[in-house]
């Protein structure tokens, strides 16, 4: 029953291979097998958005996927956003806008924002609120998060490209 499977994926740009039972969720696989604990687990039932990661570019709940389902796919977690040049523009903007307090929900917010701005670089406040409605924060009150995303969108437009 539930034999161990080998999962080969691209994680944050690098090829990786690890084993897991089919019943392991992507979130637990990322945290426990790959050591990528930047993906946080809040509700574990798809409501809070803390575990949001990108799978083939789409924002998804890593608690609602099985790890075996990312075999052959490309996964980006919050650890994969910064590069040698520094933080991702969305991270910069969150920093500048003080768009977090305790930081627990931040990886999910940042990845949802990255997905939003890739799809819609001209996102207005309504689009932003809609796109982030699935991410719960218990301390900032959201206003500074919205401001951070608006700033990130502006920065992205000025640079004229998206990472």
């Amino acid at each position, binding site marked *: *029953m539930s034999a161990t499977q080998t999962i080969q994926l691209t994680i944050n740009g690098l090829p990786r291979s690890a084993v897991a039972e089919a019943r392991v969720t992507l979130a637990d696989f990322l945290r426990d*097998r790959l050591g*990528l*604990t930047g993906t946080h687990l809040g509700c574990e039932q798809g409501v809070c*958005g803390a575990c949001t990661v990108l799978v083939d570019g*789409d924002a*998804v709940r890593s608690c609602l996927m099985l790890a075996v389902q990312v075999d052959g796919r490309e996964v980006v977690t919050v650890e994969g956003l910064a590069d040698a040049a520094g933080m991702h523009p969305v991270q910069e903007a969150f920093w500048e806008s003080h768009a977090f307090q305790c930081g627990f929900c931040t990886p999910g917010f940042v990845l949802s924002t990255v997905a939003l701005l890739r799809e819609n670089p001209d996102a207005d406040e309504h689009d932003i609120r809609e796109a982030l*409605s699935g991410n719960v924060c218990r301390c900032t009150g959201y206003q500074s998060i919205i401001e951070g995303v608006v700033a990130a969108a502006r920065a992205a437009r000025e640079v004229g490209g998206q990472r």
Partner: protein
Amino acid sequence: MYWAKAREGARHAQSLETRLVGPESAETAMKAPPFEYFAPDSVDEVLSLLEQHGDEAKVLAGGQSLVPLLAMRLARPAYVIDLNRLGSLGAIDERGDYVAFGAMVRERAAERSAVVRHKTPVLSEALPFIGHIAIRNRGTIGGSIVHSDASAELPAVALATDSEVVLRSVRGERTVRAADFFEGHFTTAIADDELLVEVRVPVARPGEGWSFAEVSRRAGDFALVGVAAMLRVDARGAIADCRISLLGVGPKPVRADNAEASLVGTMPSPDAFAAAAQAATADLLPPSDVHGSAAFRRHLASVTVRRALERAFERTGGGM
């Protein structure tokens, strides 16, 4: 100064973390009970697995309901059959008087589809109410319908549009009308060895107005109540055809037969819609819980039916 320093520190920590793809821990959390996992790449293989193991198997499509049920151990299937490796079943196909959705069409793909927006607009209007974008990126139309959650949007849309589902097994294929498909919360007419392969949503007819509306505590939450309404008027302006379905008011979505019958043949008016909304909801016995009492839900249902009818009528191009 302090900020500049802190930022430098954060950068350093981040670059360290990026390099250190940490040690594989010996303990991997396993919330779901053990099951045997299959990810076939053909529908025939799925059907053959269902023939063998149907009564002990769960089919995994988008996983947005099944995975938490597994993780909370509310579902304990011996076998999980994952459809995500199937190359087929992902198409949105316009076929004359209906639009066919393969079982693996993601809700988000349907939401972005111009065909869906133009041909089945009530579905288009309902889709954004389902969870959140990250949920709809994975969740499927077929999965939501076959899961048959009493608070879900798509079963109610299927009911109001007279949609059909195509069920296939090694025994053959059959088509079931939405009205005959939903039996209760999490219960449908699908047999253990059958796979839902397609959902067929009729194309809105010329002059047909539509509306989907729901009330929830917060955006993306399960609805307290929701309503799908379709309305058509004849040449003299009388209501020729009307279909209303409600969700969240019982164990399965229901058609408001009384209200529909009271409207057909009459001239549309705010009073007629208000009376129909009363008729649609007077006999309902919605659940009572921490999110709202039965009486509150009945009131919401009545108001929502009235608004949905008014909006659907506006979209017929008529005026009262």
